[in-house]
């Protein structure tokens, strides 16, 4: 069983390293994420539209605010589920 687990881990790691070779280089101007039209839009307009200098926060809290609300709800639901299942009640 342990050899099987090691086998799976090694194979998965090798696959991830192999796939990582195809990622665009860091800061590569020709990578698809830089070439996408939305990237230019966010760089030019996110400051005036959301008033926030950090583009990541502007995307997270403003453009994708509904998604972030869902993420917070997921964390809240997970916490409540653990409380319901595992919390020891003292009498």
């Amino acid at each position, binding site marked *: 069983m342990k050899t099987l687990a090691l086998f799976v881990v090694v194979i998965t790691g090798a696959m991830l390293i192999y796939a990582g070779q195809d990622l665009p280089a860091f800061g590569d101007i020709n990578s698809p994420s830089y070439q996408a039209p939305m990237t230019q839009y966010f760089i030019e307009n996110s400051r*005036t*539209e959301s*008033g926030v*200098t950090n583009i990541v*926060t502007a995307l997270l809290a403003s453009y994708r605010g*509904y998604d972030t*609300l869902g993420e*917070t709800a997921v964390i*809240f639901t997970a916490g409540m589920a*653990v409380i319901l299942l595992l919390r020891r009640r003292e009498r």
Partner: protein
Amino acid sequence: MSRIQESVIIRTVVRIMVPFIQLFALYVIMHGASGPGGGFQGGVIFGAAIILYAMIYGIAEGKKKMSDALDKILASTGLTIFAATGLACIVCGGMFLQYHAVPLLPDPAKVSRYLIDLVEIGIGITVLAVMISLFFDISPPESEPEEAEE
């Protein structure tokens, strides 16, 4: 485990460091609008400070700082702050989470900025409460909490 908890060095360092970790967490939450940071990261750092304290001083001491009831209240408060901000935008005539619809200040971009800060605080409160409650619920019950006091 108990040997680590009895170490004077670790107890002193933790007691001194916990307020600074909490201060840093507040900084990370409030800095989310202008640099790296945000509610998720800051909430986790704040939760880690309380978890560190509870690991060294014991679960019972930790629960004095953050009781089970407070945990539940905080977790739901944070999510409510977030959702209420979104609903306030609807009330003021915008769409859900359309921050600049709220007429708080003359400059809509500034309103958006402060409401984004408010939303980050809400995220932080929920994340820190859930982190701490996860730790308290998963940790094993203490056999003799009085023994570590000697």
